[in-house]
């Protein structure tokens, strides 16, 4: 995966490396240049001393050894000279068997000349005229100790530079991480958004992130709006059809139709089909609209009123109990889950003699909703037909099949399963298993 952190790190590494190498080399070059200029003065002085030491002796022009620096006497001392006269060449004793060449031009020579024993010589030539003849004096000095020192300094600087580079990279890493922290916060907020724990992102983001956050918020608003409109359209249509359906039902119940029982039954059946279709499509419209999270289901808040409602609808029940871990929050839309629990509990209440129980527990990555009643139960061979879409076991208890169909649609949408079994209370047990979303 591409990483901003890595890209910034690599970029910074190259920049710092380039700057560091240029700086080290430039500074060494400047020091080197300054040093050579300084040494050039020394070499010129040497040349002038040699000129002064050139005296007219008994055998013509000769060099006064007493006036020369002792370094010229000691072999391979690092200081050498060569004096070119028109007819002879004098060389310092220190040169030993090394031939110092006369440079082609006067002044400080560019570059270093290889000297004896691996020495590197800085060479200076000066031309004079004395006692009527041309003198060319060349003085040389070993530059090798300084070169070595420069190399050492170069290594030292590279080491320090590398260390500094590491420190800078580390600081940069921390810095970038701190700078990206607001992004992480936005990411967490989007996560909460997905989990339905917030409706929009905090608009108080950093200035660089504010446009992004605003865009996301307005996108949310837009999606929410169009979703609400389309949901409302389906809902309005569905609900608007319900009243005329109720009128049709009432008309069918009129005494005038008592003589036409088969007709009445057929029309009743067709109305049933329309009604079930309507209820299920309304439910589906709500389910497919689950792009944006609604409020989640807080067991402690939602279950007591639901149970109160059921007790009111089914006053014959002596006991309607529920248990769930305290503070359990189920990450599904509140209304949809109320619909599932309401339909299942309502069914159980219709069949129960005296008691119904609901238990909610988390089982690994699954949530188990278990509803039990002490009613007559359902024979095993009939259970599969009960689960078949829209069927009713008992026509006397209205809405039975429809409720289950709606529950199944909802569970299908959530990837859950529904199983029937024998309850510990004696009646039917309904187990709903829902995989917890990540």
């Amino acid at each position, binding site marked *: 995966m591409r990483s901003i952190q890595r890209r910034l790190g690599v970029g910074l590494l190259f920049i710092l490396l380039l700057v560091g190498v240029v700086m080290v080399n430039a500074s060494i070059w400047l020091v080197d240049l300054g040093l050579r200029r300084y040494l050039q003065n020394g070499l010129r002085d040497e040349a002038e001393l040699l000129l002064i030491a050139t005296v007219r002796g008994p055998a013509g022009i000769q060099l006064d050894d007493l006036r020369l620096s002792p370094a010229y006497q000691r072999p391979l001392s690092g200081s050498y000279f060569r004096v070119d006269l028109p007819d002879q060449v004098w060389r310092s004793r220190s040169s030993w068997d090394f031939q110092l060449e006369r440079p082609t031009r006067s002044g400080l020579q560019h570059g270093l000349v290889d000297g004896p024993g691996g020495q590197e010589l800085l060479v200076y030539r000066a031309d004079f005229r004395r006692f009527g003849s041309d003198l060319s004096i060349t003085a040389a000095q070993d530059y090798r100790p300084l070169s070595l020192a420069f190399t050492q300094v170069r290594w030292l600087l590279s080491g320090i530079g590398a260390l500094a580079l590491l420190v800078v990279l580390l600081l940069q890493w921390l810095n970038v991480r701190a700078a990206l922290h607001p992004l992480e916060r936005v990411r967490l907020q989007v996560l909460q958004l997905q989990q339905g724990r917030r409706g929009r992102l905090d608009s108080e983001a950093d200035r660089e992130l504010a446009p992004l956050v605003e865009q996301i918020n307005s996108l949310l608003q837009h999606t929410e709006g169009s979703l609400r409109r389309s949901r409302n359209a389906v809902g309005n249509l569905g609900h608007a059809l319900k*009243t005329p359906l109720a*009128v049709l*039902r*009432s008309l069918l119940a009129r005494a005038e139709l008592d003589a036409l029982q088969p007709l009445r039954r057929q029309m009743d059946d067709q109305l049933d089909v329309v009604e079930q279709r309507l209820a299920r499509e309304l439910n589906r419209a709500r389910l497919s609209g689950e792009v944006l999270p609604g409020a989640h289901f807080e067991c402690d808040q939602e279950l007591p009123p639901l149970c109160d409602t059921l007790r009111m609808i089914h*006053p*014959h029940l002596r006991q309607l109990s529920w248990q769930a871990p305290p503070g359990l929050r189920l990450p599904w839309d*509140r209304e949809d889950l109320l619909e599932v629990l309401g339909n299942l509990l309502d069914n159980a209440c219709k069949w129960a003699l005296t008691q119904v129980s609901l238990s909610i527990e988390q089982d690994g990555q699954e949530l188990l909703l278990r509803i039990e009643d002490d009613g007559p139960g359902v024979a095993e061979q009939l259970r599969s037909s009960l689960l078949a879409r829209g069927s009713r076991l008992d026509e006397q208890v209205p809405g039975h099949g429809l409720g289950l169909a709606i529950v199944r649609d909802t569970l299908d949408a959530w990837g859950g399963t529904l199983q029937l079994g024998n309850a510990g209370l004696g009646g039917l047990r309904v187990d709903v298993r829902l995989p917890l979303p990540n």
Partner: protein
Amino acid sequence: MRLLLVEDNVPLADELVQGLQRQGYAIDWLADGRDAAFQAACEPYDLIILDLGLPGRPGLDVLREWRDAGLRFPVLILTARASWAERIEGLRAGADDYLAKPFHPEELFLRVQGLLRRARGLDSRAPIEVAGLRLDESRQTVWRDNEEIGLTGAEFRLLRYFMLHSNQLLSKSRLGEHLYEGDGEPDSNVLEVHVNHLRRKLGRQVIETRRGQGYCFVGLSA
């Protein structure tokens, strides 16, 4: 028993009014939430059937207003919005039962019967049974031991009210208010005639007359 139906859909209201009248209820009909809020507070209704999507004022608002004012009559909500979340909200607002559209008229009649029995502290599922008499509300007859006794519509209405208020002193005006629609109150002679018919069919001792006060239904046990 006198009922108020608050429903803005005229064809549905027409059907329900006729159906409920056939069931022997006196029924008033209103279509506007504001009218309903006012009228229910002044007339002695035994039960109110309330649609939620009303012009004028939302049904839930009206219901909350009644409950805040301490009006305790049973309220049956009738609505196309029938999700459990909405049902819970409705019952929290003070409704006693909830019926989703579309419904079978039979279902509505059963709920109304059940609610009226419950409001009198009786089992909402069992038929009304008082002091040796059992009322069959679907056939509009009464059973004494194993004998089924036929009743006219007016007798049935009267007997049902008596049986739901047994051993209570009921004035003629109270009976008139609860057995007839808004402006249809009969003179007291009509009531007397029906009471006498009932006595003839069920036995003289069933209904006692308290001079100047009214009637008291005591049944066969007295």
